[in-house]
């Protein structure tokens, strides 16, 4: 080890070259006081015109959702396009799609927290909210597709009057537990993270009603050492509990398909492939939401280009994993020698729904590869368009898995062509109404950026950082 000794003697730590310097997570040297003011301004200021312009159509779509659900409940599942041989159609596609979108929030708040990824602080709150609202949208479908919604309670392990128990061996049953647990923990995590910021809003409130409501939900937070200590411990524990949930929910959703014997569904790679796809679509939606919001809410110094850059990279990584899974499915369909497997995949590539398969491949595998280029990652228009294409591609992934696998099964006499009904389409559009209504209300009344957490990643918060510490510590 003679080399080592010489090396250590000569060791001089060089400064980071300019082209490799990491941009600050809060740009333009903003003070911690500015961070509070800027985030609070969204809630405390006058309701902007753009908010109404977004809220009113969302509310109308939500009303349409209500009407569609009422119509479906009063008439029956027959109003949907589901019919032999495609007995699972848009209901399950949209369920899986929304659940997938709900994966980025908990990944950002739990897994990236445990991995000490400090950039998460600016985007975690909005992503968690997105998760909760997406899971709400998703939850509508399984509740309704049973047909007689008044029997939904049979899904829970409650002894009913016919002496029946749920089928515990069914993945649909596991979905009930997985999704409801995920929703509960996500809400808890989200709410707990909100507490210090709600206290800030309480202290800044100018009206009695605001003071009362923010104070009520701030649970008496004073910011004492004891509060912070308990808070941080709880945060760590919740992060630990949430992490397996990020994996388990979509794994169980994948088992809805994989435990069957249907070619195109029965494949061992489904659980990790679904999880990667869910994170991929979740980040797609986070980018879709945050790119316009950072502009209209003047949050460019908090959700910086560095944040966008990192999220593009996560999208690229997960998109590539999904691409690996697509290709592996194709390869093993050939490798297996099973004529049914081979047919199922040839039917995807060149059958009546081939257009759906190629949209999926284009949007999920090819388009995200543009994120390899820094210029694309730095151009918000490109990023925004690609993020929307990711959302579209992931919807088509579920379409490919469900509709294409079902529409041509083992007996050619059974083959058919699925078309959604107008109720399918309007219900799906209606879920956007629910999602955006909830999200717009959230950003108008709650801190959409985790103020306390973002302050913790500023140079001012670090006494050893030459750019901050006590020297430039902002006023508050």
């Amino acid at each position, binding site marked *: *080890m003679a*080399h*080592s000794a010489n*090396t*250590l003697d000569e*060791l001089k*730590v*060089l*400064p*980071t*070259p300019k082209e*490799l310097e990491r941009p600050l997570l809060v740009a333009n040297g903003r003070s911690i006081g500015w961070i509070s003011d800027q985030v609070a301004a969204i809630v405390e200021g006058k309701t902007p015109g753009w908010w109404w312009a977004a809220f009113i159509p969302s509310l109308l779509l939500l009303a349409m959702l209500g009407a569609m659900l009422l119509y479906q409940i009063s008439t029956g599942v027959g109003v949907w396009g589901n019919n032999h041989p495609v007995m699972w159609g848009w209901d399950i596609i949209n369920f899986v799609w929304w659940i997938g979108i709900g994966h980025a929030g908990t990944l950002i708040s739990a897994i990236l*927290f*445990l*991995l*000490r*990824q*400090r950039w*998460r*602080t600016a985007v975690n709150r909005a992503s968690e909210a997105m998760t909760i609202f997406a899971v709400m949208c998703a939850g509508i479908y399984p509740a309704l597709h049973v047909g007689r919604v008044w029997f939904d309670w049979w899904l829970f392990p409650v002894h009913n009057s016919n002496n029946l128990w749920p089928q515990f061996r069914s993945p649909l049953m596991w979905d009930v537990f997985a999704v409801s647990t995920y929703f509960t923990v996500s809400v808890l995590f989200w709410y707990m993270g909100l507490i210090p910021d709600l206290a800030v809003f309480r202290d800044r409130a100018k009206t009695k009603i605001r003071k009362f409501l923010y104070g009520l939900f701030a649970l008496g937070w004073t910011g004492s050492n004891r509060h*912070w200590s308990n808070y*941080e411990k709880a*945060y*760590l524990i919740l992060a630990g509990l949430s992490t*397996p949930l990020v*994996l388990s929910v979509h*794994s169980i959703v994948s*088992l809805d398909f994989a*435990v*069957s*014997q249907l070619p195109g569904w*029965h*494949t*061992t*790679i*489904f*659980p*990790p492939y679904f999880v990667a796809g869910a994170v991929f679509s979740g980040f797609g939606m986070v980018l879709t939401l945050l790119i316009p919001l950072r502009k209209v809410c003047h949050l460019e110094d908090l959700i910086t280009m560095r944040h966008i850059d990192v999220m593009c*990279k996560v999208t690229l990584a997960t998109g*590539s994993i999904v691409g690996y*899974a697509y290709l*592996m*499915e194709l390869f*093993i369909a*050939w*490798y*297996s*020698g*099973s004529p049914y497997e081979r047919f199922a995949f040839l039917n995807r590539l060149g059958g009546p729904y081939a257009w759906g398969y190629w949209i999926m491949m284009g949007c999920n595998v090819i388009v995200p590869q543009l994120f*390899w280029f820094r210029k694309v990652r730095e151009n918000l228009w490109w990023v925004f368009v690609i993020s929307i294409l990711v959302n579209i591609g992931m919807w088509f992934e579920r379409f490919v898995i469900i509709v294409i696998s079902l529409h041509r099964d083992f007996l050619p006499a059974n083959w058919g062509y699925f078309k959604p009904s107008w109720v399918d389409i309007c219900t799906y559009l209606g879920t956007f109404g629910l999602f955006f209504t909830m999200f717009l209300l959230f950003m108008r009344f709650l801190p959409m950026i985790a103020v306390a*957490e973002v302050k*913790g*990643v500023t140079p001012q*918060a*670090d*006494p*050893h*950082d*030459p750019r*901050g510490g006590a020297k430039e510590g902002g006023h508050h």
Partner: protein
Amino acid sequence: MSTHSDSLKVEPLDLSRWRDVPTILIFTGLVGAVLGLVLNVNQFAHSWLVAFMFFLSLGLGGMFLVLVHHLFDAGWSVPIRRFCEHLACLLFPWLAIFFVPIALLAPRLYGWMNVADPHTDHALHAKLPLFTKPAWYLVAALCFAAWWFFSSRLRHWSLEQDKTGAAECTFRMRRLAAIGVFVFAVTLTFAAIMWMKGMMHQWFSTMYGVYYFAGSAWLTLATVYLITMVLKRNGTLAAVLHEHQFYFLGSLLFAFTVFYAYIHFSQYFIIWNANMPEETFWYVIREQGSWFYVGLVLIFGHFFLPFLALLRIDLKLTFWWMVPICVWAWLMHYVDMAFNIKPSISPGGYPWMWAWLDLSCLALIGGVLARVFLKSFASHPPFPIKDPRLIEAMGHRHPVASPISGGEMDETDELADVGAEAGGGAR
């Protein structure tokens, strides 16, 4: 602060008594392997393949860590990157040389190579032209060529940066990694399919490449953790290591403990639940005789034990706790490789009477690779001395405020100066 550091001070690790271990391994291994080859060629071929796939995991895992380091522009992993590059460079020529016996004895390992007319075997016929001898050798050649190219180029630019400190080297390595990660995924998958899954060519699973990858990454992380610990304790890397290297390695080891179990359970569960004979037979064979108990060892030893052992953050930083776990990881990965490979020659259970041959092959390959690794390590700087991210890895100007922002509560105490950091971190 001084009290805190003093309490953590330990005697530098004396490795001199271990110096001859690789040589002993090589000679005892060589004797055993030659004897095995003479006594039973088939047994030798299988024992050799298990040992080869085990060490291939290490080379590929090293390559994976280097690739993701560049792709994610990581800072913390700079001090450990150099020896990961050496691990990756074991792939060529050394592991390629160790592949020669497999190439020569392939017909004894892969039954499909002995089928006179592949058209009479549906599973084989369906895989034409991939499952032909020329294609099999071509795949092997392409895999090693790709591994040689990427491992050597990545180390080349890393060493080049030791001279100049230029950011351009970082960008070159990043570009290599961008292409390399795709090549890595494809070659690893093909290696797992052609060299392990292909032993029972009727069987198929889309998860198999991921399965081998998960185990390989787990083994490599355990090895990297162990090497980092040793290099810190003997003073080689002490000046550039910080607590977060151990935190991240420990966390990744924990994550891959779960990931491997998740992957293996998913594969097993989906096959078991569908209950289709063309898939289940692979597991049915592995439930015969003592293979059933080997399966249980994997469930408890590969998952539950390390899972529970790695749960606590403080224990993930403790030398005496982590060393046995890392050694255990080696044992478990070996058991996993044997579980995949050996039932095709010993369907009734693990062949205990040939255990000495397994150990001999392992010792021979391991001994040679250890010598090569140590030689590479000694002849180059032990870490990338002019990497622009080194300062970040060492904890200087590493802005940490609270657990919420991504640090830990008392970390600021360790950031006072370099001297204090040298003793900080893992114990």
